[in-house]
């Protein structure tokens, strides 16, 4: 009993310490991080309660105020239907964020599970799963998403499915590598020798220790998924929704670039800002969670 406890403390749980005890220190706050968090909070606010933040209904058209440059009444100008661009950006955040987060959740869970099972069980299962993932990997993510989205037809959920499918291989590979690396460590061998079940070892030692890179990758991946989602609707594979998302705004506004730059500049900036913010947070998370970088981050 004592022996097992010691083993746990000495070999297993110790590696969990960084993110338990490595609390936020004043020094790791920086302007960029705060700005990123604020931006994400604002976009989240836009997605949750757009009607509070948008000055006009996003579908309100007016043939009297077509393509007006930014002004006090319309801070981001108006588009070629006479709609307020700021309101469109605010309302458009919902779909963009939803696609980004949902597809990473689905892709991360599915990919993580595949990777974990492959890595931990090994043998034939590993071979089968990994060959399947290899096949998926040979197709570029955007192309795969494009193919799936066109095959399934236009809808928000199909778009999420299309984007998440492309993220599965990355997660699966990462998780498998982590699992393989951990399952042969001496403390795992030791746990096994004292009679812990395979599942018990996995649940208590392997899974917690392999999760942190996955979390970092998922955070960084959200940015990529938002871009892929926007790219898909930019290419016109998406649904022609009543309230367009950012990719659609960008796509529809681009032919007006020479006469009304604001129509696609502001949605473009919104995409850039959100992706940048998510990546800054992802970077910071990586510093926090990666045991090998513990020294650097502190």
């Amino acid at each position: 009993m004592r022996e097992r406890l010691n083993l746990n403390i000495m070999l297993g749980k110790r590696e969990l310490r960084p993110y338990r005890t490595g609390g936020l220190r004043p020094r790791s706050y920086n302007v960029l991080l705060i700005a990123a968090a604020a931006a994400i909070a604002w976009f989240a606010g836009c997605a949750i309660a757009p009607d509070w933040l948008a000055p006009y209904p996003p579908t309100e058209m007016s043939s009297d105020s077509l393509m007006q440059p930014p002004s006090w009444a319309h801070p981001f100008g108006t588009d070629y239907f006479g709609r307020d661009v700021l309101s469109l950006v605010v309302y458009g955040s919902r779909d963009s964020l939803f696609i980004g987060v949902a597809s990473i959740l689905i892709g991360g869970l599915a990919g993580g599970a595949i990777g974990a099972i492959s890595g931990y069980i090994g043998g034939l299962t590993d071979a089968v799963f990994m060959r399947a993932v290899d096949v998926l990997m040979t197709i570029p993510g955007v192309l795969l998403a494009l193919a799936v989205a066109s095959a399934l037809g236009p809808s928000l959920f199909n778009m999420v499915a299309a984007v998440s499918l492309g993220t599965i291989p990355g997660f699966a590979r990462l998780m498998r590598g982590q699992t393989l690396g951990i399952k042969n460590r001496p403390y795992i061998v030791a746990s096994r020798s004292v009679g812990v079940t395979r599942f018990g070892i996995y649940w208590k030692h392997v899974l917690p220790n392999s999760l942190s890179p996955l979390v970092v990758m998922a955070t960084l991946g959200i940015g990529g998924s938002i871009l892929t989602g926007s790219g898909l609707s930019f290419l016109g594979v998406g649904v022609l929704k009543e309230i367009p998302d950012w990719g659609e705004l960008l796509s529809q506004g681009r032919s007006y670039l020479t006469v009304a730059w604001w129509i696609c500049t502001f949605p473009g900036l919104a995409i850039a800002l959100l992706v940048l913010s998510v990546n800054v947070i992802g970077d910071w998370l990586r510093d926090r969670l990666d045991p090998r970088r513990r020294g650097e981050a502190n």
Partner: protein
Amino acid sequence: MVKLPKTFKTAALILLLVLPVALSACSANNGVAQEGGSSGAAAAADPSPGASSAEASETGGELSYALVSSPDSLDPHRSGLSVSSRVIRTMFDNLVVQLPDHTIQPWLATEWTESEDGLSYIFKLRQDVKFHDGTPFNAEAVKYNFDRVIDPNTKGVSALALLSPYESSEVIDEYTIKLTLSKPSRAFLGNLSAAQLSIVSPTAAAQSGDRFGQHPVGTGPFKFVKWEDNSEIKVERNPDYNWAPALVDNKGSAYLDGIVFKIVPEDATRIGSVQSGQALAAESVPPQNVAALKSDPKFKLLQANTIGLPYTLFINQNREPWNELQARQALQYGIDAGTIVKTLYQGTYEQAWSALTPGMFGYDASLENSIKPDADKADSLLERLGWIKGPDGIRQKDGKRLTLRYVVTSPNREKRNDIAVIVQQQLKKIGIEVEVVVTKDIRTEIFVNDNYDVFGNSDVSGDPSWLSVYYHTAPKGAIGNMSHVSAPELDRWLEQGAVEKDDGRRAELYRNVQQYIRDNAVMVPIYVFPYTVATSRSVENLKFDPLGFPLFNDVRLTK
């Protein structure tokens, strides 16, 4: 430590992620499906400024001309797209030519006579014409062409429709041919001037078979050089050319050494290529760029209004509740085409009022302004049918929501998809929920599955008998009658109009047709498409035929 470089890395990563998306987007619109036999333009008058001032111009040079989309085939008998016709026109000639005043003049045929019963035509042909491959042009060649059009293996759609009711032809002597029709047709002679009924080289057509569309050989002022898929089509001057039609001044070979048609689907890129000098001309100028180009002395803006069928929203009568007249009338009152045209085209396109465009024979001008958008009327019509507004503002009846499936195509040509976005808002006001569906596969969605309540289309034609394709009772699955209207009186007028010899009586028949279509809310007309071309100042004498297809015979480039 190292905080800053990491941020830079992040920024660089974003750039890398954004770039491919942006780049691939630029090329993604290439090579997508186009709706069959639609759009186009027609010039009632030659819009190019004065056909004189040739002293500063020189012979030679290559004209680069940017097109919106890629032709599907350069085989005149197989393609129905107007973009194909623009290129086909440079390489092929017809038996006859139609002038802006609707008269028919000689081209490859020198003279012709129509039999008393209207069932046969005898054409005398020019004797000095040779195809690009050296094959002589004669009565045999003409017979081969028309028999090729009606050969089921050719699978021509537009050409076949234009040539009907052609039955057979008989070679009388080397330069005389007799065409026999199964029934009289007023449109037949005019149709022979259509690009789809151009005369192709029999030798080349027999040799290339199905691949003739990639290796076209005709008698036109330019010869085919090469076609790089989704990139460009190149033609060069035919030095032997000496048989140009009455539409152009230069009857001999063209002044240009050649033309390069570049395929540039992106509006901003296409117009930008003229502004930056990469191309000398670009078609289909978006309305938002028109004003700037007009005021810039370095460029010319040529515009020609179309004749044919305007861009029309067909209402599918096979589907409920649109089989009921009052429901369709609600759409007629609910859709405000005036606002659509004003918003999207900023005065560069005209609003359409009828099933025909102004300038067309038989056009009924009394329909103009005859229906005003009226949301209250639309509301009461729908209420009378039992559609009552629910809590979310959408009407319901027996637990069913009043939705309308509006199918649009990709890419967004002439802002047609933006029309859908506006209609969606306009119909929401009268309690109809519009679902806008974007598809690239129109054939399946519209003609096979019949899965739409509203679908828009336009067509180019020189004769009102073309209305039969869209409004005559049609068998199930036929391409054309998209509203599925089927009315005995409509059929009768259309059939009579096709053969009626008295012009006054004929015009009246077509007025009846147009009024029936308005009164029965068969469709909602939206806009008349002007064919616009932006050119550099140096391009002179670019002309258009009555259907709006560019003519390059007279074009000169000044230095």
